[in-house]
C-alpha cells in the first residue's frame, strides 16, 4: 500500500515534467466537479462488465481445460491426439485475431448451418477468452495430475475405486492444491486480456476509458486511472487466491 502512495506522489509532483502540455489535467476526473464526477462514474461503471466477463470466461476455461486435459492421461492414442491437437492449435492463435474470427466469422458459419445466432460483443468475448485460455489451463491440469505418483492410482484401483472415483477422491484433491497458483495466474491473465473486448464494442473498463479520451483529450490522466483500475482488480484476486491457498494447504510443500 505504501508503494502505491509513493507512486501517486511521484505522479502528482513530477507530473508537470511528463505531460505533453507541460501540466497535468486531473480536472477530467476530479470528483468535486460535476463533469469530473460524471466521467469517474462512467469509467468505474466498466468494472461490472470486466468482472462479469472475466469470471464467466474463467469458469468456462477451468471446465473446458479439464475436459481437454483428461484425455491426455488415457492410454487411448486417439484421445491423446485430440488433446495434443487442441492444445497446440488453440494456443497458437493470438487473442485478437481469434476475437475477430469469433465475432465476425462465427455468425456467418452458424448462418450457413441454418442457425440464426447473433453473437453479441459480451458473449463473443467470453467464448474467445474461455477457449483461448482453456489450452493453457489444460496444460496446467495435465502437469498437476501427472505430478501425482502412479502409486496413488494403483492403490485406488486395488481398493476398488473406478476411474471417476479415483479422480474425484484421490487424484484431484491432491492435484488441485498444486495447480491453484498457476490457475490463479491464468485468471489474472483473463482479466487483463478482457481489455481486448473493447475493440468489438464491449463496454468494459478499457472501452469506456477510450470513449472519454476521445471527448476530453486527456489520455494520460484517464489511462493512468485505467491502469490503477486493473491493479485493484488483480490485487483483489491475489488476496482471494492467497486465502484459498491457505485453506487448501497449497502453500505447504507436498509430502506424498
Amino acid at each position, binding site marked *: 500500500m505504501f508503494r502505491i502512495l509513493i507512486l501517486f506522489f511521484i505522479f502528482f509532483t513530477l507530473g508537470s515534467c511528463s505531460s505533453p502540455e507541460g501540466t497535468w489535467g486531473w480536472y477530467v476526473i476530479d470528483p468535486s466537479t460535476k463533469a469530473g464526477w460524471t466521467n469517474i462514474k462512467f469509467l468505474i461503471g466498466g468494472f461490472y462488465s470486466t468482472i462479469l466477463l472475466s469470471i464467466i470466461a474463467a469458469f468456462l476455461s477451468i471446465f473446458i481445460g479439464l475436459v481437454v486435459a483428461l484425455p491426455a492421461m488415457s492410454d487411448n492414442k486417439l484421445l491423446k491426439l485430440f488433446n495434443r491437437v487442441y492444445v497446440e492449435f488453440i494456443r497458437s492463435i493470438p487473442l485478437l485475431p481469434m476475437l475477430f474470427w469469433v465475432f465476425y466469422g462465427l455468425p456467418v458459419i452458424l448462418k450457413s448451418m441454418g442457425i440464426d445466432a447473433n453473437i453479441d460483443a459480451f458473449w463473443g468475448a467470453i467464448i474467445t477468452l474461455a477457449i483461448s485460455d482453456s489450452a493453457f489451463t489444460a496444460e496446467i491440469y495435465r502437469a498437476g495430475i501427472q505430478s501425482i*505418483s502412479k502409486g*496413488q492410482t494403483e*492403490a485406488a*484401483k*486395488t*481398493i*476398488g*475405486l473406478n476411474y471417476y472415483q479415483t479422480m474425484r477422491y484421490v487424484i484431484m484433491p491432491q492435484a488441485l492444491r498444486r495447480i491453484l497458483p498457476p490457475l490463479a495466474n491464468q485468471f489474472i491473465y483473463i482479466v487483463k486480456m478482457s481489455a481486448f473486448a473493447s475493440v468489438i464494442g464491449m463496454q468494459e473498463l478499457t472501452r469506456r476509458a477510450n470513449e472519454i479520451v476521445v471527448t476530453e483529450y486527456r489520455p494520460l490522466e484517464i489511462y493512468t486511472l485505467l491502469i490503477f483500475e486493473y491493479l485493484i482488480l488483480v490485487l483483489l484476486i491475489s488476496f482471494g487466491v492467497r486465502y484459498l491457498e491457505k485453506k487448501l494447504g497449497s502453500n505447504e510443500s507436498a*509430502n506424498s
Partner: protein
Amino acid sequence: MKNTFAVEIQGLTKSFKDFKALNTIDLNIKHGEKVVICGPSGSGKSTLIRCINGLEDFDEGKISISGNPQNPTKESFVSDFHIGMVFQQFNLFPHLSVIENLKLGPMKALGLSEKDAETRARKLLERVKIPEQALKKPNQLSGGQQQRVAIARALCMEPKLMLFDEPTSALDPEMISEVLEVIVDLAREGMTMVVVTHEMGFAKKVADRIIFMDGGSIVEQNSPGMFFKKPQTARCKKFLKQILHH
C-alpha cells in the same frame, strides 16, 4: 469352494520392449496357501504379482482367479473374490486421515454407509495395533505404522487373497518386525497370501511354499524346510548365500 485353486497361472509371458520380464510362468496357488516369492531384483517377482491382480497387462498365457479369468483391462477391481494389495511404498492417500484412508474403499466401492465403514475401519486399526492414530495424516506416522495402515486399508475390502509387494523393503530395520508380526497374524487366521520378500526368517515361519525366481522364470520351488536345507540349483544356492550371510 467351486475351485481348488485361488490362483491358476498357465504360460504367463510378458515383455517390456526387448526385456522379457516373465517367461512362461506356470503356478497354482491353493485356497489358504501362503506363498513367498524371492529372487534377485529384475527377476519378475513384482511383475508376477501385479499380473495376478490385474494392475499389469500380459502378452501371453492365462490367469484364473478362483476359476474366473483375470482381465487386465477391466474397469473395476471389485469382485466376490477381492484381491488386496500392499505396496513397497505404502501408497497411502496423503490428503486423507488414516481412518478416511480405510473408509474410502468400503464407502465408495462397496457402498457401505459411513457408520458401517467406520466400524469396520476401527476394528481393523485395532487389529494392526494402531487405533490411537485414526485421525492423524499418514505423514505424521512412522514408516512401520504407515505400512500397517496400508495393510488395514487393504483388509477393509475383505479380500480373499492378499498380495504383498516387498512390504518391508522401504522400512527402517527396527520397524520391520512390527509389520511382519501383523502379516504373520493374518497368515495364522488362514488368509491366502502371496508375499514378495527377502525376509527369510519370515518365510520360514509362515510360508507353505517358497518360490525362487530369476530372469523371469520360476527356477525353484519347495517347502521352506527343503528350500533352505537343500537348494537344488546353483543359482538358488548362490542367492541364498548372498542374502543369508551379509
